[in-house]
């Protein structure tokens, strides 16, 4: 591997294949672990519907819990900003849609590059602010372990390298594009085995919370 192009070819070739397979297998292992664990049969008579209550909770829990915005406004607002920003950049940046279209044949309209660029900057700044908050807030700092910092890093790097690639702030372009893809592969490798898995399991957790409440006939 001598040149930037060799690096790019390796990154989007064998390295991507490995990252993709580990990502998928990892997600399935984690899901099966959770789903096959099972629950003891609840012999009590159901007082309401599990399904509808579960489904409702999947959506209602998207909004912050009452009072949490007052208690920790920075965490709640910052969390919303960068999560939404990250999803916009990931799913509405045109080259990303083109990638999905070329590989899986699915596509949808994207947003203007200038808008995505602005969102990326806001997301990067918010993520940095969140990290500083985590490092300076005594309780958050106490609660944070190495995994939390790793998860922050693998989330931050794809945005940073993507921004550098889009603005061609590193030469040659093949190198910075390769670094961007590599950072995403890092995220894919780490994703199933860390808290990042919440991007999938939040659906199960929310549904289960709602379903339990629904069965008992209480509000979730």
């Amino acid at each position, binding site marked *: 591997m001598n*040149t930037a*192009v*060799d690096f*790019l*070819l390796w990154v*989007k*070739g064998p390295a*991507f*294949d490995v990252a*993709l*397979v580990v*990502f*998928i*297998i*990892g*997600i*399935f*292992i*984690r*899901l*099966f*672990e959770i*789903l*096959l*664990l*099972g629950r003891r049969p609840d012999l009590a008579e159901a007082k309401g519907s599990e399904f509808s209550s579960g489904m409702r909770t999947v959506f209602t829990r998207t909004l912050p819990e009452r009072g949490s915005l007052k208690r920790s406004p920075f965490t709640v607002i910052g969390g919303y900003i960068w999560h939404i920003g990250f999803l916009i950049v990931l799913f509405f940046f*045109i*080259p990303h*849609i*083109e*990638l999905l279209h*070329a*590989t*899986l*044949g699915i596509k949808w*309209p*994207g947003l*203007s*590059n*200038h808008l995505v660029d602005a969102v990326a900057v806001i997301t990067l700044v918010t993520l940095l602010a969140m990290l500083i908050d985590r490092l300076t807030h005594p309780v958050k700092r106490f609660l944070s372990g190495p995994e939390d910092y790793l998860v922050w890093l693998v989330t931050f790097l794809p945005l940073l390298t993507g921004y550098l690639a889009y603005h*061609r702030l590193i*030469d*040659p*372009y*093949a190198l910075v*594009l390769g670094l961007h*893809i590599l950072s995403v592969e890092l995220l894919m490798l780490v994703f199933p085995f860390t808290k990042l898995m919440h991007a999938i399991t939040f659906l199960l957790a929310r549904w289960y919370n709602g379903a339990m409440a629904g069965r008992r006939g209480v509000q979730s």
Partner: protein
Amino acid sequence: MADFTNYHKTLGESLRQNGVSRRGFLKFCAATASMMALPPSMVPAIAEALEKARRPSVIWLSFQECTGCTESLTRSHAPTVENLIFEHISLDYHHTLQAAAGEGAEAAREAAMHENHGNYLVVVDGSIPLGDPGYSTIAGISNLDMLQETVAGAAAVIAVGTCAAFGGLPHADPNPTGAVSVSQIVKDKPVMNLPGCPPIPTVISGVLAHFLTFGGLPELDDLGRPMVFYGKSIHDRCYRRPFYDKGLFAETFDDEGARKGWCLYRLGCKGPMTYNACATVKWNQGTSWPVESGHGCLGCSEPDFWDGGGFYNAISIPDSDVAQNLGYGVAAGVAVGAAVGLLNRRKQADAVERHETVTVDDLDKDS
């Protein structure tokens, strides 16, 4: 090639003799200044320097090449000032173009080297085989020997075309001849790379004008290419860029998008990673250039462009069959996940089985 009536004339005299008006000459100087990003105040200085410039001796060495570079440079429409600058230089040796052959040709090269020692320019097109000297020889002299011998007394070396600059096609995997670039051999002389397959003729004339005006090479990037021509990517200067920004891509070479002139990124255009002046200078006297004609950029002015993963593969899209890998991943994931899950269930069942209940009496007994 040696035209001795012209030998001691300045460029100005030579141009006037060929019917180039003062106005035409100054227009060329202004165009050169703007093309090379020099301030307008430099135009008179360029004009004056070029006017007085004596014919520099140029020795042109062709090694493992296809003659495309020479074709590109000599087929520009006459009469242009660029053309006349080429005619003005004393091209003392160019075995493709010169009438002499064999020993006579080699004698011309040696004479030029001897007479202009320390002052002549060496232009190289083609790569140099290191695998076996017999792969490419001229008059029984290996390319490596001829390059080293000729470069020894040169003022500077210009590697014209991607083969000379980066190894090019001969260097492409698996590189059977062990081809290398000029800069991998010449270490003690200034080497300027003018890559391209072939390079733009105007780039050569611009660089020669710079050499005649300032007596040296222009500012180079980290690949040895003049910044003025290779400082911006094709993508940044491409007239189809707005379509990329809007997400309008041609999917095939004959679909509606292709007819409407949309971005060729999906069809493998290497514009984003290619640094060259095609998008602004264009080809054939500014007529058109590859992207304008409907074909993506091949990235021909970049190292190893032959091995860049296929001319028709989009640069950021994985080469493998992602859908298929995804399928394998899901199948393997289901199998491994189910196995791990069942293992956990067994562990759970074992734990339940091994669980011993303790009564209050048992606890009392222990204490």
